[in-house]
């Protein structure tokens, strides 16, 4: 019933990823002890794209993924099922972890991911990179790196992939 609207095209996404990669490198002064962790499922492709871009610009850094569904605060309130298995191929102790997600909305998934990542160890710092920040935060969570700020209504759906960002 709602119509689809493309707000970013593939080229826009590519440019945003490049800009975010530069910002991550700049912010972390040479990338010592930095790793990317994509949030299952939507953030995984973006973490991989950022990882590839950072490797191209500077040097490769570890990229992992995390599934936070077992940490969600809405377990039992609505259907949740775990996505793909978490994969953290590096020690988290002392690492600067950049959590990566496609769309930042209420902040609850990020909160769950923060809880999850600390069960792997004690990171030196945790930063947050998202392709789209659509607002409507329900927790005090703010992204460090944003591809695009996108005002939405809460009835809308936002889908962000390498092919573009679509509101419906």
């Amino acid at each position: 019933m709602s119509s689809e609207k493309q707000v970013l095209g593939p080229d826009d996404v590519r440019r945003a990823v490049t800009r975010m990669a530069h910002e991550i490198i700049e912010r972390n002064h040479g990338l010592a002890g930095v790793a990317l962790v994509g949030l299952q499922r939507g953030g995984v492709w973006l973490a991989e794209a950022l990882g590839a871009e950072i490797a191209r610009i500077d040097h490769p850094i570890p990229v992992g993924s995390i599934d936070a569904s077992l940490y969600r605060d809405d377990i039992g309130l609505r259907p949740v099922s775990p996505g793909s298995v978490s994969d953290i191929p590096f020690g988290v102790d002392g690492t600067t972890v950049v959590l990566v997600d496609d769309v930042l909305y209420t902040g609850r998934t990020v909160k769950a991911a923060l809880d999850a990542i600390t069960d792997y160890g004690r990171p030196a710092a945790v930063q947050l990179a998202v392709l789209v920040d659509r607002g409507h935060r329900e927790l005090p969570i703010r992204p460090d790196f944003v591809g695009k700020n996108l005002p939405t209504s809460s009835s809308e759906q936002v889908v962000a992939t390498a092919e573009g960002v679509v509101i419906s």
Partner: protein
Amino acid sequence: MKHFRSISEAGPDALRRLLDIADHMAEVNRRPNPKVPALRGKTVCNVFFEDSTRTRLSFETAAKRLSADTMNFAVSSSSVNKGESLRDTIETIAAMGIDAFVIRHKSSGAPWQISQWTTASVINAGDGWHAHPTQALLDAYTIRTALNRTDSFDGLRIAIVGDIKHSRVARSDIQAFTMLGADVTLVAPKTLLPPSLDGFDPVTVTTDLDAIIGDLDVLYLLRMQRERMNEALVPSLREYTSRFGLTPERAARLPEHALIMHPGPMNRGVEMAVDPSELPGSVITQQVTNGIAVRMAVLFDLLGSGANLEAES
């Protein structure tokens, strides 16, 4: 799913889903802090009408790693004989506010009766000769990971050897393995088979282990209870071992990739006439490890996935 009482009742979709969730739980178990908050505030009560320390510990560990509260209720047969019916026992415990019952009972069917008397989920941790679905789940999960058969067991040749008749493990394994596509052969004399195999999934039956052992992917040995000898089910344990036991000669004839499995506890020198630690294909300790992950998967699916809400709405 509301209950997890048998593999056949759960069906193939749930079986595959639980195996997929078990992958996540196995990953949790490999972490430095193998605990997640998924089932905070849920209470799981282990009610064991029959002793089984291993299974109870496995369920208790699984529940705790999901942050559920656990209670243990060991029901000695004497207290049941004081005139309290099974229904009384269950209704009393249920009144304490239980989200899931984990039931072990020496009588087949007890979990079905119990689920009539409580609104909590019921997980069958073994009932009589009938079913032990979490064992089947961990067995299937062990095969799936050890042989890297995530999609299906199509064409996999599995032999289940020994006392099928009295075995809840065998009944559940047969359902799970055939549901995933494996070719299952039962190896046992008629005395150790159920009176009829009509209602079973397609299985073949033989008494000649040597004829098939060279072509197996999985050799599953059942525990041979020593008292069966006195019931004229086998003439002697020595004869049982010579016909159906894993001897060094048979171990040598197993294909290199073949897995050797056992639900435990083992009868050394009876069904297991070799030292399993010297068998490269033995995955018996992995079975125990995987038991925690699959039980976490079951608990999460019943109490945490919200699937019940979906079904109700």
